[in-house]
């Protein structure tokens, strides 16, 4: 079919495939563009408007089909001239013209003059805002394209472009177009001369502030939607893009800050925080005090944390912006003046620390201080001495604690702190205060010490004595331990405190060598903390501890500070025997070996190879009498990285593959099986390994007993983790076993439980051991299991063990997967609360509690059976978590319609009288909340 015929067919039938056919003809050079245009010429000049429009659309579609590099400059030129002439032909044609322009603009051979013609034509002939969204979108795409790729051309047009763009954009409301417009504006403010139109430009943007847009919910989900965040960010970027907007923007922000709407205030503060990079303090000099007042008011009386954080950041931004400008004490652009104002206004609140405003005031002053070094020095030298004085005059311990907390807060490290020095008099006073009161308030002094040390303030001898005494004598709780550890790590990390560290270590070691006692775990942990430093770790390690048996189990904690080779050659290898004798506890072995394995990357290849040669093929190591030896081996090998040790892992797999069924049943068997699973998982990409694994699974299935089902479970799990879809093949076998009337049913239930339990990570089958874990394993597995298990779930004659495992399964499944099924499964959950199913209670209660909380109405039909069971469980003495969850369920039930639950009210309030007298405080707390919900049911 020739070109003419194709064109006619398109005009008559509007067949879309014709566009492709014509495009293909042009690409293969069977048709020239000139010939195509000549052929379509009659239609383009037809007196019928519809034909002209259709012809133009065809041209646009055909050109769109062509690659971006296809057209020659002269072809583009003629098309541009032709299209811009068509613009003034009729308004109906403009949409097709704009489409054609968009395609031409992207042609790489387009020259500058054609670009200018195109832009001018768009600005003069297209009344953008009178067109539908699609065409407006095309216009903005063209303009953005030129701004991005032909900036030099746009710059030739100068501020005319800005003026015309403002007219085109004025009144734009579609979010998709706005995103484009905002992008264009960002480039314009940056690269074009906006000076003559800056006010207009600001106005056109400011009318969208604060941006409030809720995306429509689309059912298809495929359509690309614009998000609120995207628009907010784009708008903020323009407002903050140039200092020229400052004179208009700041008054607008002030107006929004004064409004009652929290979202508007938040948006205004957000813009302010980001504008200081571009805005100069001189541009806002007349508003500085007003801004300070507004921000400090927001921070002091914040309705919520979000506003407080924003206000504090704004205060810091304000101070930073002043700090950047040339200081002039005669005007408001003076850091000192504003800091004085802050101290004058907020300082008084610090004296009344029972009042609600004390802490907000501290936060405001700290926000001022963290802006820059001048602010910090001013705030510190003004406030800290007076706080110390106040501390010394006060008598109440809790007031003193508050003051210590306040000082700590003022001195907390921020991004700029590294270059600031604490005034020496303040620093000295603080160390004196700390040395005298350390024993009375250790929990409050330790954070203060950390902050002071981070400011490189050098402590005196007293600190070492205090800390030594504290570590050796105090009975430390977890909170104190963390604080102490922070202090010690800071001491260890800086060369400045080398002397203190060495002295402390000597003191601590003397304490147990001198008295020949065993150091406590806490003391040893402190020593480890003091070794934390890449440079000094080795030195201190060798000088003070090495080798000490007690110390070995703590070694892994400092591994990250030592080089891998050092650990493997100096610690692991020569100490291997020592390790085997000292690491008897399974937990320590696991930790030690997993740490060793996790660092075993390529650099350790030689070590591992040697290790293999000497140990791996030595059959004696696999004898069961040397269990610890084997355990260490298993954990170490199990942790090796697939990437570097594929070959070694294969060797070991082949070695143990023959022996897997010969294992005698002892406590090692379990770990041995998991190790086997670990290897299968890591090597599963190899077909022969997969075949091996399958044949072992088959062997297990032929004689299902305890050992074989256990092995079956582990291997299946290893395979599922690698590829979750494998579960399909194995679930039927499991269901078959579960329906057996023998012990196999129980074993199968256990097996399903361990297959579906992802909460307890087994070390040898986890990503830590470099196993392959499919990212969607949970979803795919649960979907499969649930779909295959439904008949079993609805079966009314479930055995207790089956009930247990199924209820557990439901509580493990991510809620989004079973959302639709859970209501149909509700009777099973309620049945699981019966007295005979004690072990299923926790899972069932959790599932029910989640369900009542999210969809209370789904439970309405079952409340007659549910209430008596919950009432019984709320007083179940053996387990407090069951009591708490039952009470929670009872509380959530008050959200049901009143007429449904009113009949139970008296009974439940009566029952709760017993619960509020429970012997556990946490249960009482829950009972009180539940009691109040029921008592105030109609209030």
């Amino acid at each position, binding site marked *: 079919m020739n070109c003419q015929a194709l064109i006619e067919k398109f005009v008559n039938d509007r067949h879309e495939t014709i566009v492709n056919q014509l495009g293909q003809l042009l690409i293969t050079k069977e048709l020239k563009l000139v010939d195509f245009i000549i052929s379509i010429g009659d239609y383009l000049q037809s007196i019928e408007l519809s034909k002209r429009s259709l012809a133009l659309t065809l041209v646009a579609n055909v050109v769109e089909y062509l690659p971006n590099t296809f057209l020659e400059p002269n072809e583009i030129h003629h098309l541009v001239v032709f299209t811009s002439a068509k613009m003034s032909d009729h308004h109906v044609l403009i949409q097709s013209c704009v489409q054609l322009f968009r395609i031409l603009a992207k042609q790489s051979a387009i020259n500058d003059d054609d670009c200018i013609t195109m832009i001018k034509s768009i600005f003069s002939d297209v009344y953008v805002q009178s067109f539908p969204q699609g065409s407006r979108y095309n216009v903005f795409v063209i303009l953005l394209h030129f701004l991005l790729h032909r900036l030099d051309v746009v710059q030739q047009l100068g501020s005319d472009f800005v003026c015309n763009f403002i007219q085109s954009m004025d009144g734009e409301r579609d979010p998709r177009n706005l995103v484009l417009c905002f992008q264009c504006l960002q480039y314009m403010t940056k690269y074009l001369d906006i000076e003559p139109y800056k006010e207009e430009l600001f106005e056109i943007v400011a009318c969208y502030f604060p941006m409030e847009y809720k995306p429509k919910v689309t059912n298809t989900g495929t359509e690309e939607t614009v998000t609120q965040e995207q628009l907010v960010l784009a708008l903020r970027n323009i407002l903050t893009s140039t200092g020229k907007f400052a004179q208009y923007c700041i008054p607008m922000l002030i107006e929004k800050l004064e409004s009652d709407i929290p979202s508007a205030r938040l948006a205004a503060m957000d813009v302010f925080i980001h504008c200081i990079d571009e805005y100069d303090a001189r541009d806002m000099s007349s508003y500085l005090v007003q801004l300070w007042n507004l921000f400090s008011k927001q921070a002091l009386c914040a309705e919520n944390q979000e506003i407080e954080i924003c206000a504090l950041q704004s205060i810091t931004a304000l101070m930073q912006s002043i700090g950047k400008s040339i200081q002039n004490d005669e005007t408001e652009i003076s850091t000192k003046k504003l800091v004085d104002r802050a101290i004058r206004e907020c300082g008084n609140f610090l004296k009344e620390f029972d009042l609600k405003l004390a802490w907000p005031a501290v936060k405001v002053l700290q926000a001022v201080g963290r802006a820059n070094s001048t602010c910090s020095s001013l705030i510190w030298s003004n406030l800290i001495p007076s706080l110390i004085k106040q501390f010394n005059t006060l008598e109440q311990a809790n007031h003193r604690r508050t003051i210590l907390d306040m000082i700590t807060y003022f001195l907390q490290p921020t991004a700029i702190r590294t270059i600031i020095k604490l005034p020496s008099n303040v620093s000295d006073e603080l160390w004196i205060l700390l040395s005298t009161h350390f024993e009375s308030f250790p929990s409050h002094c330790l954070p203060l010490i950390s902050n002071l040390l981070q400011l490189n303030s050098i402590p005196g001898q007293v600190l070492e004595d205090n800390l030594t005494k504290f570590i050796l004598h105090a009975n430390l709780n977890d909170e104190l331990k963390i604080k102490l550890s922070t202090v010690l790590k800071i001491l260890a990390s800086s060369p400045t405190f080398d002397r203190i560290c060495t002295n402390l270590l000597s003191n601590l070691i003397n304490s147990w060598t001198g008295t020949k006692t065993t150091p406590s775990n806490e003391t040893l942990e402190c020593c480890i903390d003091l070794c934390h430093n890449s440079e000094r770790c080795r030195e201190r390690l060798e000088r003070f501890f090495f080798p000490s048996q007690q110390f070995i189990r703590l070694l892994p904690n400092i591994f990250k500070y030592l080089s891998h080779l050092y650990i493997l050659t100096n610690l692991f290898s020569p100490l291997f025997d020592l390790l085997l004798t000292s690491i008897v506890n399974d937990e320590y072995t696991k930790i030690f070996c997993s740490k060793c394995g996790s660092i075993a990357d390529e650099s350790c290849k030689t070590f591992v190879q040697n290790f293999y040669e000497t140990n791996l093929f030595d059959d004696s190591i696999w004898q069961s009498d040397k269990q610890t030896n084997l355990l260490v081996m298993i954990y170490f090998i199990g942790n090796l990285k697939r990437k570097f040790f594929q070959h070694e892992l294969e060797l070991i797999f082949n070695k143990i593959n023959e022996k897997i069924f010969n294992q005698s049943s002892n406590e090692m068997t379990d770990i041995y099986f998991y190790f086997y699973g670990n290897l299968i998982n890591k090597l599963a990409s190899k077909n022969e390994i997969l075949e091996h694994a399958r044949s072992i699974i088959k062997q297990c299935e032929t004689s299902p007993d305890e050992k074989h089902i256990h092995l079956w479970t582990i291997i299946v799990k290893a395979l599922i983790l690698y590829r979750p879809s494998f579960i399909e093949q194995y679930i039927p076998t499991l269901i078959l076993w579960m329906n057996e009337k023998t012990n196999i049913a129980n074993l199968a239930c256990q097996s399903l439980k361990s297959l579906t339990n992802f909460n307890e990570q087994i070390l040898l089958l986890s990503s830590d051991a470099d196993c392959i874990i499919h990212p969607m394993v949970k979803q795919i597995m649960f979907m499969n299991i649930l779909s295959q298990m439904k008949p079993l779930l609805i079966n009314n004659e479930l055995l207790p063990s089956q009930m247990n495992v199924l209820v557990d399964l439901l509580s493990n499944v991510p809620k989004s997967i079973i959302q639709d099924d859970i209501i149909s499964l509700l009777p099973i959950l309620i049945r699981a609360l019966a007295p005979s199913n004690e072990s299923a209670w926790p899972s069932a209660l959790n599932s029910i509690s989640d369900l009542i909380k999210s969809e209370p109405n789904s439970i309405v039909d079952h409340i007659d059976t549910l209430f008596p069971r919950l009432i019984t469980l709320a007083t179940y003495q053996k387990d407090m978590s069951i009591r708490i969850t039952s009470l929670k369920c009872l509380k959530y039930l008050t959200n049901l319609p009143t007429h449904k639950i009113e009949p139970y009210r008296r009974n439940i309030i009566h029952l709760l009288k017993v619960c509020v007298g429970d012997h556990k405080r*946490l249960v009482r*707390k829950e009972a009180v909340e539940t009691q109040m919900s029921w008592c105030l049911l109609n209030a």
Partner: protein
Amino acid sequence: MELSSGPQNLNPTIYERTEDRIIQESDYDNDVRDEIDRREIFDLIRSINDPEHPLTLEELHVVDLDGITIDNQTNTVQVQFRPTIPHCSMATLIGLSIRAKLLYTLPTRYKVGVNIFEGAHIQESQINKQLNDKERVTAALENQHLRAVVNRCITTSES
């Protein structure tokens, strides 16, 4: 117990809230018995709302930890509170709210006494007498209007 139309103390002093009770490891041990202590009673009443202001009794310093005594041997609880101003007409209502909250949430074995701090109110003795008269308290809580006001005070955001 009459309710006046507008707030009497227009500009009350607001105090910092104490931190929530820290949960210890032993709190999760079902075999350890946790006795009810002063702090627990305080936690029950600290969140009661003031009838006049959108603030809690704790924030207005009407109740504090020092004003509470508990004796688990004799099963008695004494709560003392401090009206923000000595002529506060809401004092009885506040006392009634405290009583109501404890009535609903304390185990029945406790005998509760609610009193005003000595010298904190001009009608201290009269109010104390009212608050500790069981019949009058019951009668007050049966009054529909008064019960609604009390319920509003003891409703917390969680419940």
